[in-house]
């Protein structure tokens, strides 16, 4: 659904970086290396990195079935 506000494990606020990450590395237009983008955003622990790498926005999928 929506990206989590904080990292499940350590509690760092990660939500604010999602849209930049999505635009740069997790969409058709963004073809940068996800690892480099995560480094750039300052997410250097693997607990925070997996939050983004494994996230899928589902609002568009769910919204027709309101």
């Amino acid at each position, binding site marked *: 659904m*929506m990206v989590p506000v904080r990292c499940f494990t350590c*509690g760092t*606020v990660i939500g604010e970086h999602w849209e930049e990450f999505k635009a740069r590395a997790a969409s058709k237009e963004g073809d940068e290396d996800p690892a480099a983008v995560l480094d750039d955003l300052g997410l250097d622990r693997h607990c925070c990195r997996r939050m983004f790498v494994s996230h899928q926005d589902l609002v568009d999928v769910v919204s027709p079935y309101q």
Partner: protein
Amino acid sequence: MATDFDVEFIEDTEREARFLVRGITPAFANGIRRAILADVPTLSIDTVRFVENSSVLFDEVLALRMGLVPLTTPEGEFDEDDTVTLAIDVEGPATAYSGDLVSPDPQVEPADENIPLIELKDGQRLEAEAEAKLGRGRDHAKFQGGVAVGYRHLQHVEVGDDASEYGEDEAQIVRGVIEDGDELVATSEFGHDLTNRYPGKEVTVEDVPNAFVFHVESDGSMPVDELVLRAVDTLSTRADELREKVSL
């Protein structure tokens, strides 16, 4: 215990700090770590009154998302029962961000403005009043002021003789902060590998007793140095309380 601690900053920014404390016992170091995580009161949204929520998320899920947004917490301005009421009103098609939370008090603002709360489609609307209250990390993770708080022993490096010429060419990995004479060096400066810093030398690494390097990050509700000071304050208040309770 009336001893003074020797504190030295290695790295200090608004959200992240690394500092060395000497003359501290492991138990006390852990006490400080736990106090930073669980005992520093911070403001967080706790009760939300929804006027309208036609988004794809349920009220309670949205309320949790709002609660997790860090709010700046000025020191000494709020008591345990005080509340601050923030308002949000966003109409789709748009994304509601944490920055859309409107606060009546300029001292209490969302620390990060770009956290997406919910994506609203055409015709969907979110209108709510959110009440923030003071709470502690031990009650809910949303009240945690410090994130990823930890400490390591300070490592003392002793440089010995030249390494044997035909010895194994292995990396010698150390993480944290090393002490080389009087100089403190973060291991990230030489790629965490001692063979980079002392090529061709035998080096021995030892923990320095009772010297700990803390690494503290703040979620933005307050600067790191303030967070640590407030944590130490809560420790001494609790110690005073205990002394009062057990004295005859």
